[in-house]
């Protein structure tokens, strides 16, 4: 017992010492680094898995990390200046920034949505709420983000769906947020086929939802869902795989990727 009591503080201090909370390739000359680390320590339960996103300027790096579906932190650091963190979610946003003397300031921002829903303007969309509900089923499936403006995401839609269904997985199509539903329907008709809503005599969309739900998910956006189409995400056992397939793979390639990723979602 005495030994355990002696060891425990060592374990905790070792963990604290190893957790830097900072991205590996962050600029070395940022101001208020200690304050930043301390604040990140209060936002994250462990060292975040940062993914770098495009530099917003020649001297400003941006990194993203999340611990909960739909809740992301974007860290922006400028050489020689204090950093800033944006909390991004559908419902609310917060900006944390530090002054030159490293005093923390907090500012409330509006939530992040591609479409503001209102009674007058209801847009059928796929939100983080939908994503959470999907994950809570503990089923295995793929989310296929497509756009009528990227032709292969249309022409390969049915092939990918067939493969996914053949393996017994769910297939959830999500439409590029910037495309119109009419544009999507036209492209589908011209290039792919026609998506139909579920009725007894017709093939049912496994997502159980309208086939033209537009992307309105912070989670998918922050995972770069809109840089190219299609982008394919995989989920299983209540988790969304951190990686994604960008572009078109044929059956064999997609099958291999899905098998590998499923193995990683334990």
């Amino acid at each position, binding site marked *: 017992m005495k030994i355990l009591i002696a060891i425990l503080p060592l374990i905790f201090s070792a963990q604290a010492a190893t957790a830097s909370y900072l991205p590996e390739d962050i600029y070395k000359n940022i101001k208020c680094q200690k304050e930043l680390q301390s604040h990140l320590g209060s936002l994250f339960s462990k060292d975040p898995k940062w993914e770098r996103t*495009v*530099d917003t*300027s020649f001297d400003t790096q941006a990194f993203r990390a999340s611990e909960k579906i739909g809740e992301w932190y974007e860290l922006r650091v400028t050489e020689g200046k204090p950093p800033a963190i944006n909390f991004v979610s559908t419902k609310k946003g917060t900006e944390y920034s530090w002054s030159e003397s490293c005093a923390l300031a907090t500012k409330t921002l509006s939530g992040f949505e591609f479409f503001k829903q209102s009674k007058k303007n209801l847009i059928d969309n796929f939100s983080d709420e939908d994503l959470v509900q999907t994950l809570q089923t503990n089923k295995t499936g793929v989310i296929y983000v497509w756009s009528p403006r990227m032709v292969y995401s249309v022409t390969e839609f049915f092939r990918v769906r067939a493969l996914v269904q053949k393996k017994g997985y769910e297939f959830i199509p999500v439409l590029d947020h910037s495309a119109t539903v009419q544009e999507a329907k036209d492209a589908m008709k011209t290039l792919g086929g026609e998506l139909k809503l579920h009725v007894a005599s017709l093939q049912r969309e496994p997502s159980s939802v309208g086939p033209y739900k537009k992307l309105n998910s912070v989670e998918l956006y922050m995972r770069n869902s809109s840089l190219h189409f299609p982008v394919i995400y995989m989920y299983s056992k209540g988790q969304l795989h951190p*990686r994604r397939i960008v572009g078109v793979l*044929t059956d064999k390639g997609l099958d291999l*990727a899905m098998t590998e990723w499923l193995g990683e979602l334990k």
Partner: protein
Amino acid sequence: MKSALCFFAILCSVGAASAKCIPANEYIPFVGKATKPNSNGMIALGMYSRISPDGRFVLRSFSGDHLSAVTLMEIFKQPNGQKGARAYETDFDNEAFPVQGSWRFLVDIDGSHYLVKDIVTLQKDARKQFRGGITGFYTAAAEKPGASDQSIQIRTLSWPSERVGDQLEQGVGQLTNETIYVRKNPDKSYSKYDSFGPYYMCSNIQKTEGMTYSLPMISTDGTEFSALPQNPADRKVSMRVYKFGADNKSCEKSDDLNVATSKAIFGIAQNGKKAPVVFLSGSTVDNRPAYGIHLYDRDLKRTFFVGDRAKRVSADSFPGMTKDGRVVYGARWRDCEACPETLGYVITDFYQAEDVKRFKEQHPDQAKNFKQCITEEEVAKVEAEQSVLYGF
């Protein structure tokens, strides 16, 4: 004396004019048939827009209901003095591509090579010069430097493909490349006289990069390519640049942009510098999604934002660069939230981008080779050189 004064005055005025900077951002609207809405009410911006080295032409697919699938867009000066972008129709299938670097040929997806001049003058009636190179799925091509009429080398790079039995199945597996040799005949037509490949590539870096890549794009001189490995050992989703090995099979990783991007498209390597890449990527600004065109300087290892935040611009994901360094891309733009949307091309002077100007102020040592701007004279020179190559 009078004539001498006049002569000097002319020289002076020419000198002053030639030193004139091009606009920081120039917006060229579509004109003619390209402005007609499709049956769904939307005007087609087109896809896979590829920019010629002089910025005069853009080859695009999915050109809308009123035009052929692939059109060659020309940026020209209208009688009213304003620039516009007009369409020439082609008989090509979607995803036709140019031979980058020279734009000596435009290539249909079956490998048929056409002259730009023939498309402009004959449009759909243009006749192919020869057929060759890898065919199909997102192929990109580049002419290697140092060509002569007797020997023009063109390297094609394909999207991942796989051999299934005797067939090449497009869409999965390793990247492949093929080089064809072309010569100009006495009657000014062109013929293919040799080819090497296709070669399956990058097995030598399988351990670190995996075997499957997406978004491949060849450099304008055909010596490099950019691609996003799907299963790299480091599990990082990032666009990377690779060199073609001398054996046409091996690959050497030469750069990692460290971020996920749309296709990374090469500019031209000049003055001993590495070829920059331009790409569309997104971030968030004030908790709103913000996409824009960026340029990655591979010598400085820095990314510059070259979009125009003064306007509401929705940029296409296929930007390109001219020989003089202009960044050109398709876009939809509005002058204000309530203003009507215009479609066309944006021409940006990299050196006049706000981000670049700030960099020059803060890092004069690193920016010592940066110009103040691209001048009209530089553009005219590139246009004149390219006009000789087009033959009109």
